[in-house]
């Protein structure tokens, strides 16, 4: 289906799909490689600079990239240093993944219905929106002490903080999505015989889906961003936890390993969400 649809150009009435649209595709394999090739240039430069600035210097506080690479290999597979960190990556990654996704899911379960209600019902908006707007600028880090008092040391605080980080992007985008549904679509639905009670799931929900999806994507991103803060609450495992711990032990190479793994895991999880979005929202010009 999609192959023929790609060729529909605006302005074509019922004429057959325009042939010249397909022409630039001749170099598709090359073009596919161009973006990754471009994307790799900057990190390579950073690596080279990092290497030149740190390699062979005895008292450098920052380990050279080769040492970090060895540490990362040892963290994942062991066999080099055989210390407390060897072969523990999967444990920490799994712990962080469960907190990120757990916190994210809880945030979504809370923020989606709340956002739909605030967006649709003016009484809810007047009741809750001012409070939420005041709470929103408070950084997750600032909640850390209070969270440890309320939820105690350990994983419950971590869940709470991650959840908090993911909550506002989901909420704000859901409210925005619901509120910015084109009024014309309500008119169209009602003149076609769709009653206002049915308009919520037949118009409001689908129309605000792209914005809700953007909120979920941002929320998941923020969950990764705040994972280190979340794991400052005294949990023994997790990528954030080893970063804090390794910092205290001056194992900077482990700190950098943690950073790299968080970056890559966050990137992959965002890509998965984006692919899902492209499948579900292929109708939207913003996602297709």
């Amino acid at each position: 289906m999609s192959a023929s649809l790609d060729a529909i150009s605006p302005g074509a009435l019922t004429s057959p799909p325009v042939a010249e649209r397909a022409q630039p595709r001749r170099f598709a394999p090359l073009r596919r490689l161009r973006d990754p090739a471009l994307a790799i240039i900057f990190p390579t430069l950073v690596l080279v600079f990092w290497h030149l600035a740190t390699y062979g210097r005895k008292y450098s506080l920052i380990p050279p990239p080769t040492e970090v690479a060895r540490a990362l290999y040892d963290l994942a597979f062991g066999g080099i240093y055989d210390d407390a960190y060897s072969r523990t990556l999967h444990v920490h990654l799994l712990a962080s993944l469960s907190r990120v996704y757990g916190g994210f899911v809880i945030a979504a379960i809370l923020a989606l219905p709340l956002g739909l209600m605030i967006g649709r019902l003016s009484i809810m908006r007047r009741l809750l929106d001012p409070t939420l707007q005041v709470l929103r600028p408070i950084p997750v880090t600032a909640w850390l002490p209070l969270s440890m008092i309320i939820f105690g040391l350990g994983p419950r605080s971590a869940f709470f903080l991650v959840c908090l980080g993911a909550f506002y992007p989901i909420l704000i985008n859901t409210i925005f999505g619901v509120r910015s549904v084109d009024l014309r679509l309500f008119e169209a639905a009602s003149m076609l015989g769709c009653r206002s009670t049915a308009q919520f799931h037949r118009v409001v929900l689908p129309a605000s889906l792209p914005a809700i999806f953007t909120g979920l994507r941002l929320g998941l991103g923020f969950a990764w961003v705040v994972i280190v803060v979340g794991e400052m609450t005294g949990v023994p495992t997790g990528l954030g936890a080893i970063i804090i711990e390794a910092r205290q032990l001056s194992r900077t190479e482990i700190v950098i390993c943690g950073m790299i793994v968080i970056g890559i895991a966050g990137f992959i999880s965002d890509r998965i969400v984006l692919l899902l979005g492209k499948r579900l929202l292929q109708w939207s010009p913003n996602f297709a």
Partner: protein
Amino acid sequence: MPDGNGPLLELRGVCKEFALPGRRVQALREANLRVSKGEFVCLIGASGCGKSTLLRIVAGFETTTRGQALMSGAPIAGPGPERGMVFQDYGLFPWLTVRRNIAFGPISRRRPKAEVESTVDRFLKLVGLQRFADAYPHQLSGGMKQRVAIARVLANDAKVVLMDEPFGALDAMTREHLQDELLEIWERTGLTVLFVTHSIEEAVFLADRIVVMSPGPGRIESEVAVLLPRPRDVVAPDFNEIRRQLALRLHSHQPRKAA
């Protein structure tokens, strides 16, 4: 083409006022209009003459401040499928394919599935969009979108099709195509059409009767019956004569700047 049972649509002394901060604006004053079944009526006038307001009252999107709007003798209370609206900006549901857009009305009215599918197929064919049945609106040209919008109200058994400058955003070629197609559909289905336009040529080309409106406050000024046989030739002398008459009527109500 009156069917003997009174007009299909009737406006009796319809007034519409809008409240703006600090003042009230009269959008429509004392509008009286009767439209028979099967008639093609164009509303024409400068902006602010209330033609869109009148259409929106018939659609049920606006209430009247005074007066009555009747459909088949019963007061119009809110939008309904028997009065289908075609918007200038299409108003298609972007998340639904062409097929699902056309099916939206029948599904809303809980028609059986098989009936919905056959209805959709019939109207896809009528507007010539079978090949684009599974495309999404953003993949279509303006002319194709407007075809979907027309098919969508027809598939929902609209008795009256209300069109608010439906071809205003289209290029001239596409507009002419769609005017021809609309007339063909109208002749084939026996629909009643209430069509708002600001193009004199479009009105003369399409209408059985042209309602001339003027602004400040919006009101119905006069009516012109167009008795030319169809298909109409837009460069024929009698076509131009009607066009000239209409232009005079429209412009005589506009205040000219003092020299």
